[in-house]
């Protein structure tokens, strides 16, 4: 997030898109509800599904999945045509506006309406509201990014924020909501194939010198090319170029797209090691499994969606012979050529903070009270609540012209429904944690597929019937939930249930830049199962 959770109630307009906030980020959603109910802010919801936030929305635009670029280009068109741009901000803080103007000239609301199914009048009203409130904030999650056009979707949202000057002040901003508890930190600390900690590029000579020196490695030994992303690793394993895979705390056999393909890939490698707290679907395929500990049995830090670095503290003894992940990694390193001797997590933090500019002023001692939001460059710096207040990271904000392209797989006669995937309130990701809580699992014990009642009637499917959902890649069985939440023609499933692994169906087509898979759109068919369900 460019902004902070605590400044959400200052927004006059909230544009929430591709985020089922009340279920996936419920406590952050409380601040959105506060903005609407207590402070009179207007919520523009742009989402195909009638999710919980729809009850709080002033406007709900229900687009056909995968047509986001068309809608946001048309909103930009309206804002420019009606003279609602913030020209001072554009002149002082941005560049390339003329190219954007040219690119959206033909993107009339009528053209976007024909593609997205959203009435043109709603697009116009959303554009006017967003541009004229004085403080408009955009929020999104995987509904924007998990598309082959994920990067484009983010660019068109950034265009809207910049052309209206809705950046750099409380109650504004472009705010992606991070899913996992520490996905922000895993990115910040270099858990990505293209960057060292602090987003310093592995292709940079200076960065390689800096880390070679800090780590005591000869400069020539530093690898100078970008490594593989998750999806590329699986392809590499299948093609024989990746021979050994080590996995810490992830379960690609449930969370990756096109699972049959992942299974073949993990079977193909010569060596697979998995470090986790449970023997999950991926661990069962491994040659070696290393028992690690949960958040309640170790110390360290997580970084949340507003860039706040916060402590976790050990509360329980480690179970059996399990050990904290950092000790396991250290032991493996020392059995290779390393000579690491970290006394505790605070000492590791000190080393990484010294190499990571955004974290440079932080220490475990400073995080004790309330954590700190990065960037925090010095030991006196109070942290940063709002990014891009005076300038953007690259200097001037760059407008980018984006053209609309269709999703990788469109519906046809054989696979006539769009499948979109996501989460529900009661479970988490692959279900490893939440499905072991009997209270949560009792509320949502089985995989369901949301089907619009009109589609249910056409298919001869009643509420609660077991149905088979199939794509070109696989099939799963789930219980039909007839509901108007999903629009007719679109079905929705979660990926929480290993016994009905939705990612057997999903497509491994990825965004060309971010390499994120298109979980939100693939083509499926839905069939009633002839067998009665077992009680």
């Amino acid at each position, binding site marked *: 997030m460019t902004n902070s959770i605590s400044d959400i109630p200052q927004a006059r307009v909230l544009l929430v898109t591709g985020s089922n906030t009340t279920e996936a980020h419920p406590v952050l959603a409380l601040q959105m509800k506060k903005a609407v109910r207590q402070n009179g802010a207007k919520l523009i919801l742009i989402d195909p599904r009638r999710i919980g936030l729809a009850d709080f929305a002033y406007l709900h635009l229900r687009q056909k999945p995968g047509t986001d670029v068309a809608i946001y280009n048309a909103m930009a068109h309206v804002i420019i045509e009606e003279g609602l741009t913030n020209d001072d901000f554009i002149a002082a803080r941005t560049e390339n506006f003329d190219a954007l103007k040219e690119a959206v000239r033909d993107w009339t609301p009528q053209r976007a309406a024909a593609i997205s199914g959203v009435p043109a009048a709603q697009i116009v009203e959303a554009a006017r509201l967003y541009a004229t409130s004085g403080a408009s904030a955009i929020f999104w999650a995987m509904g924007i990014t998990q598309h082959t056009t994920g990067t484009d979707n983010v660019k068109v949202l950034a265009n809207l924020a910049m052309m209206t000057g809705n950046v750099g002040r409380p109650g504004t901003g472009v705010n992606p909501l991070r899913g996992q508890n520490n996905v922000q930190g895993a990115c910040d600390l270099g858990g990505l194939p293209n960057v060292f900690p602090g987003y310093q590029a592995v292709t940079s000579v200076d960065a390689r010198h800096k880390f070679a020196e800090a780590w005591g490695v000869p400069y020539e030994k530093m690898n100078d090319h*970008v490594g593989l992303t998750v999806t590329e690793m699986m392809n590499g394993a299948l093609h024989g170029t990746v021979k050994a895979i080590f996995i810490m705390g992830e379960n690609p056999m449930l969370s990756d797209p096109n699972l049959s393909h992942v299974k073949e890939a993990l079977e193909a490698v010569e060596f697979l090691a998995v470090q986790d707290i449970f023997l999950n679907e991926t661990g069962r395929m491994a040659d070696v499994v290393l028992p690690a500990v949960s958040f309640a049995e170790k110390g360290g830090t997580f970084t949340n969606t507003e860039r706040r670095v916060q402590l976790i503290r050990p509360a329980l003894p480690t179970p059996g012979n399990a050990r*904290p992940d950092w000790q396991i990694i250290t032991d493996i390193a020392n059995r290779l050529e390393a000579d690491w001797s970290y006394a505790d997590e605070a000492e590791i933090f000190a080393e990484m903070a010294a190499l990571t500019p955004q974290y440079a002023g932080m220490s475990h001692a400073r995080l004790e009270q309330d954590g700190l939001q990065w960037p925090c460059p010095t030991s006196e710096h109070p942290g940063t609540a709002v990014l891009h207040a005076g300038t953007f990271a690259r200097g001037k904000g760059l407008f980018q012209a984006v053209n609309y392209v269709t999703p990788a797989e469109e519906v046809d006669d054989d696979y006539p429904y769009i499948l979109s995937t996501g989460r529900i309130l009661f479970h988490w990701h692959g279900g490893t944690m939440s499905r072991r809580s009997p209270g949560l699992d009792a509320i949502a014990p089985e995989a369901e597929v949301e089907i619009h009642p009109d589609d249910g009637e056409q298919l001869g499917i009643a509420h609660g019937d077991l149905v088979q959902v199939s794509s070109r890649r696989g099939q799963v069985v789930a219980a039909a939930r007839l509901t108007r939440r999903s629009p007719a023609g679109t079905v929705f499933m979660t990926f929480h249930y290993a016994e009905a692994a939705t990612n057997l169906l999903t497509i491994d087509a990825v965004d060309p830049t971010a390499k994120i898979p298109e979980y939100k759109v693939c083509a499926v068919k839905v069939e009633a199962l002839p067998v009665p369900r077992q009680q």
Partner: protein
Amino acid sequence: MLQADQVVPTTCPYCGVGCQIDLHIKDGMIFRVNGRFDNHVNHGNLCVKGRFGYDYVHAPDRLRQPLIRANRSDELAPTDWDIALNTVANRLRHARDTYGPDSIAILTSAKCTNEENYLLQKLTRAILGTNSVDHCARL
């Protein structure tokens, strides 16, 4: 009312909001969790997972012992740390020295700490010599 032996302030392990919580511990078990008020994130609030979703910590099927097998057709069997760690180190070294550093791929974790992510990418880059380290940020 049940009295805690210990109340430990920490951060919720579920989503990216990072709610601040108190774990109430009695006889080595988490028996109550409440949201903390003294912060800028959750102001005492929690969702249903953050308040009640901790049984997994005490689940009987938690991994307590390293497991190993010589062949994929065998069952995984308990082993000791030395054998497990030596096997991992030797097999990674073998892949690196035989096929080159880029024959190794590492998945780090959005569920693990910053410190652990830092160390695993350091192992990947400084010792194994590849940049093929990624995690589920995209998933």
